[in-house]
């Protein structure tokens, strides 16, 4: 479903991604972790072309993200993305947030878009807030709206870029619960996160990054049970002891 082949990226002289390769098969959940500044967020933004790469190839659902011939806008509409800072549209209500791309991109009728939005908002448990503006919601609620906004497009895969790291601790679980449910329903997911509990519960593979390179890319149980590299061991000991 998602295949990254030897991608490299530079900001000026600084290489943020070094020859990274990874795949996410259909229905799989892959967690990407690593210390801050290791390039995880940059990597996931390359998958739908929000960030350009200078070397290597990226394929999503058989289409080349990196090729100029690909209609990137159309491809993006089929890949959901959830951001660290939610990025809901602050000037619109929750309902409008969910309807905008449905109507403008998928050309759904108003009624179709609204009923889809209502269904998804109910599913993430915030029906009573559907006519509020994002600023009136808690962080956890906003992130659940953001997930629903992506799901409204019926995506073939979902990308999560540190979806819980801007949240207060007591709100993290309400967002993770929604993500676990999605994973169990068979959604293809690539998730940048520090939530190792989430990784253990639903991830098929864990990708560990450090200094722009993929250091480990292994089945979840192997990664946690027997990390190969010192850097991964070091990272895990720090993150799991808290």
């Amino acid at each position, binding site marked *: 479903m998602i295949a990254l082949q030897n991608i490299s990226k530079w900001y000026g002289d600084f290489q943020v991604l070094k020859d990274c390769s990874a795949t996410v098969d259909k229905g799989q959940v892959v967690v990407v972790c690593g210390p801050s500044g290791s390039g995880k967020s940059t990597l996931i*933004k390359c998958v*739908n072309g*929000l960030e350009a790469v200078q070397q290597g190839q990226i394929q999503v659902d058989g289409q080349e993200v990196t090729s100029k011939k690909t209609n990137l*806008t*159309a491809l*993006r*509409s*089929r*890949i*959901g*993305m959830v*951001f660290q*800072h939610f*990025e*809901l*549209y*602050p*000037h619109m209500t929750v309902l409008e947030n969910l309807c*905008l*791309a449905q109507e*403008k*991109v998928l050309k759904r009728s108003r009624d179709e878009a609204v009923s889809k939005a209502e269904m998804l908002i109910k599913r993430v448990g915030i029906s009573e807030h559907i006519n509020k503006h994002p600023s009136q919601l808690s962080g956890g609620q906003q992130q659940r709206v*953001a997930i629903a*906004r*992506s799901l409204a*497009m019926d995506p073939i895969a979902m*990308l999560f870029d540190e979806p819980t790291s801007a949240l207060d601790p007591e709100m993290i679980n309400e967002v993770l619960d929604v993500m676990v449910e999605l994973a169990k329903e068979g959604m293809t997911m690539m998730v940048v996160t520090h939530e190792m509990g989430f990784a253990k519960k639903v991830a098929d593979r864990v990708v560990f990054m450090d200094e722009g390179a993929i250091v480990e890319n292994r089945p979840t149980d192997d990664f946690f049970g027997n990390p190969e590299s010192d850097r991964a061991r070091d990272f895990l000991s720090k993150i799991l002891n808290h």
Partner: protein
Amino acid sequence: MGEFDFSVITNSLPFLGQGLMLSLWLTLLSIIGGIVLGTLLALARLSGFAPLSLTAAAYVNLIRSVPLILVIFWFYFLVPLALGRPIGSFYSALIAFVLFEAAYYSEIMRAGIQSVRKGQVHAGQSTGLNYWQIQRYVVLPQAFRNMIPILVTQGIILFQDTSLVFVVSLRDFMTASSIVARTEGRLVEMYLFAALVYFVICFSGSLYVRRLNKRMAT
């Protein structure tokens, strides 16, 4: 100097009112035109496409380096030449104001667009919205909202600047006041009154801006 005679004002109110309407009408149309064109200039400037952004930058810098009164003159003489027929003082002044103010509004809108977080654009892109849809539905509404106080302030300046249209013999409020002042020989009363009217309108505008700023800060 004799006594002040303010009856001259009440007697010429309809005439002054017509002048004021022209000033306000010209201000309103110029604000609308200026913001629309200014927004397009700002988008051009931020487009990242060199020929477009350089052209927009050159335009903005050129216009901002010449006095408004000169631009009003230019268009008064140039537009009839270009079109081959006269279009009247009002429309030539309106075109001059729109083109002039657009340069200032474009700088305001540019700051407004840059005040919208990049993540908002990413969110739009990730749901498959194209460039124009993202600008139209996501970025510009927020940019505009963030910049309303400054846009209104610029509107107040524009209202004051409309007094320059006397150079193309348009009868705005200031010109009307001058005519009454001179024909009735009541310069002091009329110019005091004109100052009062400008003050009331502009100061109410400023108060409104202050209220907007307070509301946005909370």
